[in-house]
């Protein structure tokens, strides 16, 4: 089988990612204006927000893959769901790391029960459970089925979690609510580019992971081919 990295499309994507990752970094550090209040700390916003976007996107993919798996019972949807769950959780972790890094100098405390951050934390915890079910369940069809169900239930729960956390700690509404359209063009376009690069990174990693999972199941299945 053709290796993932030797595919034309993978090469192109990887190339674009490598170039634009550096471009974004350069724009963030040298071109975008420095926020008068937050100074350099504000720059993490170009990575924090796209991470959160990708985490949400990942979990959305988990839900759709789950629905498709339950309908079609095709293993490929399980691969997609698992890969997206892993990436969603990875980017959740990035959100949870970059949030406090920013919050420490700005709010004076690394953690605040800000609704978006808290929602991400709860999703992260739910997905730790998800991976435990994956690990403790055997590699069977039932584990795939229940993972699909968990992914669906977890995502449908997001709006309820968000609203409840939002009104629970109404005093913690310190999170900046920037309206992107009001930003200066340098900030706006850099942010948009970063968002694009993160999304592309997500798609690239997702395809890579799905490819590996496919190979893995092929290899594991080979043992029993008679």
């Amino acid at each position, binding site marked *: 089988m053709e290796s993932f990295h030797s595919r034309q499309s993978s090469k192109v994507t990887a190339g674009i990612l490598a170039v634009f990752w550096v471009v974004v970094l350069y724009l963030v550090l040298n071109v975008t204006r420095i926020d008068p209040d937050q100074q350099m700390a504000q720059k993490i916003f170009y990575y924090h927000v796209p991470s959160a976007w990708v985490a949400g996107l990942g979990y959305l993919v988990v839900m759709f893959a789950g629905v498709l798996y339950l309908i079609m019972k095709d293993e490929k949807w399980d691969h997609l769901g698992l890969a997206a769950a892993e990436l969603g959780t990875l980017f959740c972790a990035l959100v949870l790391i970059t949030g406090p890094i920013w919050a420490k100098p700005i709010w004076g405390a690394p953690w605040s029960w800000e609704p978006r951050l808290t929602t991400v934390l*709860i999703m992260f915890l739910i997905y730790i459970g998800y991976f435990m*079910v994956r690990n403790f*369940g055997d590699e069977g069809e039932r584990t795939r*089925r*229940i993972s699909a169900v968990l992914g*669906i239930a977890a995502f449908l729960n997001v709006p*309820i979690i968000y609203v409840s956390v939002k009104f*629970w700690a109404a005093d913690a509404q310190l999170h900046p609510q920037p309206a992107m359209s009001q930003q200066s063009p340098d900030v706006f376009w850099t942010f948009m580019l970063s968002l694009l690069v993160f999304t592309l990174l997500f798609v690239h990693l997702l395809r890579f992971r799905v490819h590996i999972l496919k190979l893995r199941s092929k290899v594991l299945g080979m043992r029993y081919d008679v």
Partner: protein
Amino acid sequence: MLAVLVRKDLLIEFRSREILISMITFGAAITLLYAFSFRPSPESMQTFAPGLMWMVFLFVSVLALHRSHSLEKEFDAFSMILSAPVERSVLFISKYLSGFIFLVVAQMVLLPLFFLFLQLPLPANLAQMVAVFLLVDLGISAAGSLLSGIVMRVRVNEMLLPLMLFPMVTPLLISAVKSTASIMDNQPFNQWKLWFQLIVSFVIVFSLIGYLIYDYVSEE
């Protein structure tokens, strides 16, 4: 068929008394621990009581959910039910309802104890309190029955169940605590309507998911 299944769970409990006794003793034990740990002032107790209360009920319902599902596995009665002409969605509702009934019965014993030991004043509006409690109990049982159905055949399910359930029910717990606190504070319904609505949406979402999806979860 639903009545047959719920009556079965109740009859089993009536015979063995395993679930309710462990729920009530465990709940009473935690309540006592609370009383000993927070003795200083009944006033400050009142601030924390709603949260502490719902944590007790959440822990206690995990006991019930786990026990009721391990009874299904002990002599593999679950396979018998699955092979019988019983729709799985009905099976889900039956587990959901019996879990709800156990929780309500346990609360009827535990709540008075809670108010007594922690020296809390009784809320003026009991009807509101009862309505909120019944709805939250429905929510816990819906999410709990779905999740215990999911983990019942996974290894270490006794550990996985709380691990999955607690983050999943966070919004429900928050809303339960907030509305209980508002009721104990004698606030008008308008002030905490939002929490009530959140509880209702949680109940609807998880009842529907369970009803529609239990078929996929129950088979081995």
